[in-house]
């Protein structure tokens, strides 16, 4: 046989016992060609295009799952930022389009559709403003539409006026939905990638072709198991075995992505090599760090451990695919990763440590419940802190905070299903108000002048 029994079984075990799967196959769809000043025509163009390709995605993904025995957990769609396509339309166009996207996603059996957002790092157009103001209503009246905003970038700096708005908007979204769950569908970014396949922040960027099929692989469980098998090697050796594993899972992701794109007759975009955790036992990024020898995620050494882990994943991934893209960092969503959640519960992990992790490799403060009475300016300040890390380091950082109405630090909150459960985190009660309310635009860092 061309393959050894061990090789065959390694692949089989990954899917059977270590939760190896394709976390998401996300089809980016350009909606610029759907624009029409007649809103009814516009809506029907959007509906037809999204349902046609959505159904095709679900059907073809099912066939590939059968062929390779690797589950494709989520089939999703990202679209052109909605603020761009409603520029010439009436006031209520953003909401009308959101409802159309929601209906199209439901009819095509797509669980989430991303792209209700705007790129406002330097300033807001009238349509951007309208869209931002509509977020609380949009997120409370639709089921599957995800929203994003890019409010900062390394070349433009940070739009503090938009960030001021967001403190109030997040509180408003939270108050309109059970347990503030609407906030779980909204991500704020610096340096948002245009080809990110992961929700809530996915959108089909303006530099993208008509279609683009992007793959998000997964494998915390697989990586954890190789770390477990290599308890005695030093960190150089550990990096090597993680790198090899990352190579293998990225190759599988690339194979599946390319074949799916080819079967759908759309261009293949990228493989996002982020390790995306779930609440399943063993499928936790915190679990990997703890297996490396840190007693609880968040203890001293966690940042170094995570840096080593992701560096190895990137090196293996870059060897495996010439199309690595999207976020390709670490996701450590607190409520969606049972190990992270445990660490918060026993107070090993604070929001300050999470922020430190994002300076190295994490892509943001993700799925963090904060007290419902946190002042809007404090929420804006947390966003500003997190995004400034992205701006200065030339990387993506994002924020997905849930100010849970009526809950205090330490309280338990259950968002249900994949969104998980968590404990409300402690937030500093010292005020940032006067700083935040200055507003304006924080200038781009000197490192942005590269020409």
């Amino acid at each position, binding site marked *: *046989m061309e393959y050894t029994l061990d090789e065959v079984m390694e*692949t*089989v075990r990954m*899917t*059977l016992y270590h939760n190896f799967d394709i976390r998401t196959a996300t089809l980016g769809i350009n909606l610029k060609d759907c624009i029409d000043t007649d809103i009814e025509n516009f809506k029907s163009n959007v509906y037809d295009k999204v349902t046609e390709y959505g159904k095709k995605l679900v059907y073809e993904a099912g066939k590939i799952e*059968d*062929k390779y*025995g690797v589950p494709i957990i989520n089939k999703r769609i990202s679209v052109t930022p909605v603020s761009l396509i409603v520029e010439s339309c009436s006031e209520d166009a953003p909401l009308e389009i959101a409802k159309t996207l929601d209906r199209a996603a439901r009819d095509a059996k797509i669980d989430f559709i991303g792209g209700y957002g705007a790129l406002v790092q330097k300033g807001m157009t009238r349509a951007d403003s309208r869209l931002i103001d509509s977020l609380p209503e949009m997120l409370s009246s639709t089921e599957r539409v995800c929203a994003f905003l890019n409010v900062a970038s390394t070349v433009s700096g940070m739009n503090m006026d938009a960030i001021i708005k967001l403190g109030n908007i997040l509180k408003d979204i939270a108050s309109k939905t059970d347990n503030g769950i609407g906030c779980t569908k909204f991500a704020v970014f610096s340096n948002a990638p245009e080809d990110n396949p992961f929700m809530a922040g996915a959108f089909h960027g303006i530099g993208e072709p008509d279609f683009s099929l992007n793959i998000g692989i997964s494998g915390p469980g697989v990586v954890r198991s190789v770390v477990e098998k290599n308890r005695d090697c030093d960190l150089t050796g550990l990096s090597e075995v993680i790198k090899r594993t990352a190579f293998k*899972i990225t190759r599988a992701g690339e194979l599946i992505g390319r074949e799916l794109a080819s079967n759908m007759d759309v261009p293949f975009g990228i493989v996002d090599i982020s390790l995306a955790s779930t609440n399943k036992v063993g499928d936790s990024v915190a679990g990997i760090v703890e297996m490396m020898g840190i007693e609880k995620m968040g203890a001293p050494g966690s940042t170094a451990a995570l840096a080593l882990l992701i560096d190895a994943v990137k090196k293996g991934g870059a060897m495996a695919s010439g199309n690595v893209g999207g976020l390709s960092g670490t996701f450590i969503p607190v409520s969606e990763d049972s190990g992270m959640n445990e660490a918060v519960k026993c107070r090993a992990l604070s929001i300050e440590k999470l922020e430190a992790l994002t300076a190295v490799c994490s892509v943001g403060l993700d799925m963090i419940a904060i007290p419902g009475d946190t002042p809007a300016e404090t929420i804006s300040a947390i966003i500003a802190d997190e995004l400034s890390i992205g701006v200065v380091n030339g990387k993506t950082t994002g924020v997905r905070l849930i100010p849970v109405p009526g809950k205090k630090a330490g309280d338990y909150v259950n968002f249900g299903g994949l969104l998980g459960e968590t404990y409300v985190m402690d937030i500093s009660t010292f005020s940032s108000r006067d700083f935040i309310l200055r507003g304006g635009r924080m200038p781009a860092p000197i490192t942005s002048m590269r020409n």
Partner: protein
Amino acid sequence: MPKDLVFITVIGKDQKGIIARISNAVFMHNINIEDLNQKVMDGYFVMTMLADMTDSSASIGDIKKEFAEIEKQMDLNIQVQHENIFKSMHRV
């Protein structure tokens, strides 16, 4: 003509008739067995069969449905995966 190869892997408690049942199902669908390996790993019976589906009118989905019945009756875990995934993961 390139072959259409799949790996059929079986994991479970060793018992009589595993290979017979699998081979019979494969034969009924006009699938040719190219190679076969078996061994006991960590206390479990493990078998990998490389099979060529070129002449078969069945899809991988059809075969899986049939194996689901054998899995239930014999308390086994049977996977069917196209060869390409092994090539991409284990060969540069």
